[in-house]
């Protein structure tokens, strides 16, 4: 079976940062990505809070630059899904859709997946007006009204981006206060194209070939209404991609992996880092930091448990 020193599952900032350190440490490092590189920054516009970029940087450019750096040190990228992880001491065996590999250490940086509303019409109209990525799709809705669901940082960030194209952006939020940071709240509340619809949920997405309108329900008055829009963008949080670790390591109630300060799980040689782990700050820079912490510990683990035998 093919042997890898450091297998990384997930090509977002945590995984790529781990890849830079793993490969630079001259360990055979392979990054497994099941879809596209970059993780959540691949669908983010500008990043204003990454240290070292006072003028901001495009999220994708940053991800691509990080990935190029990892490859320069010799990290390998494979577009494969890891479907199972099992212990075969002293190794950890990964099953992918292409076969099995034997890893001395595994760093799981699988991140989180956007939540769906779960209302009628939503899944049927994905790609026809329902979207979880305003950065990708907002430009298809020039000069028409659109709706955006959510009240956190991601929701307001994307609402502000969407105003570049749409004639009007309705932000539908189930409460009457926002969770988003003050700076984003101030910008969104002051924006002439953004209108907030408070205490309200989407009951149904209507349309056949394209979204035509949303059925809304006010949670305080219980009144329903119709909102004519051409698109609905959804930003209502994420669920960690911890399924692949099912039964192997303890999770918190939200499905995040419990780790110590070295990103170690109770399984020797198995680490979790980034948004997937419990108590994460869920920031680009902290995810990258997590990945680095895990890679440094993985390097120690390999030299303690394997190098003296070889």
């Amino acid at each position, binding site marked *: 079976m093919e042997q890898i020193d450091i297998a990384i599952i997930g090509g977002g900032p945590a995984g790529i940062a781990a890849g830079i350190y793993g490969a630079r440490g001259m360990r055979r490092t392979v990054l497994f990505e099941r879809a596209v*590189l*970059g993780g959540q920054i691949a669908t983010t516009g500008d990043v204003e809070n990454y240290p070292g970029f006072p003028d901001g940087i495009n999220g*994708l450019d940053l991800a691509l630059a990080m990935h190029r750096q990892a490859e320069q040190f010799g990290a390998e990228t494979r577009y*494969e*899904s890891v479907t199972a992880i099992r212990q075969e001491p002293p190794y950890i065996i990964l099953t992918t859709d292409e076969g099995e590999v034997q890893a001395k250490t595994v760093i799981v940086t699988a991140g989180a997946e956007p939540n769906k509303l779960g209302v009628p019409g939503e899944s049927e109209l*994905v790609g026809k007006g329902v979207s979880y*990525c305003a950065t*990708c799709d907002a430009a*298809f809705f020039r000069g028409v009204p659109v709706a955006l669901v959510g009240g956190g940082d991601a929701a307001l960030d994307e609402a502000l981006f969407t105003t570049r194209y749409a004639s009007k952006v309705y932000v539908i939020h189930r409460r009457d206060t926002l969770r988003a940071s003050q700076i984003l709240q101030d910008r969104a509340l002051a924006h002439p194209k953004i209108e907030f619809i408070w205490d309200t949920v989407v009951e149904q997405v209507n349309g056949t070939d394209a979204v035509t309108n949303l059925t809304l329900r006010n949670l305080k008055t219980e009144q329903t209404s119709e909102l004519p829009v051409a*698109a609905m963008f959804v930003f209502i949080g994420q669920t960690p991609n911890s399924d692949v670790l099912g039964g192997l390591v303890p999770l918190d109630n939200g499905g995040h992996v419990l780790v110590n300060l070295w990103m170690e799980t109770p399984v020797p040689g198995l680490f979790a880092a980034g948004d997937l782990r419990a108590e994460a700050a869920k920031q680009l820079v902290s995810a990258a930091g997590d990945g680095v912490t895990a890679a440094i510990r993985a390097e120690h683990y390999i030299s303690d448990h394997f190098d003296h035998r070889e």
Partner: protein
Amino acid sequence: MTHPADTTDATFDADVLQSDTPVLVDFWAPWCGPCRMVAPIVEELAGEYEGRVKFVKLNTDENPKIASQFGIRSIPTLLVFKGGEIAGQIVGFRPKSDLAKRLDAVL
């Protein structure tokens, strides 16, 4: 790695609809970050399916006619054409193995 050729509103009929072999069309735009992330996967597949499937890409900003004809409202979108008809549609990110399955299905 094989770089897919560009197709346009003007050449789409000849490049795609009249093609003897199945064609995968990658709908993208320069401002679409995730489209840039899909490109390397499409390039890997283009190499693996060389001679059996034709790979082209269409810039939706410069070629709005075709993009609207096929109701593209979300990118990246990949469409697979066989005999001038849509034989498969992939919206957003999917694993490379899923894309390969869609291609195998039309071969």
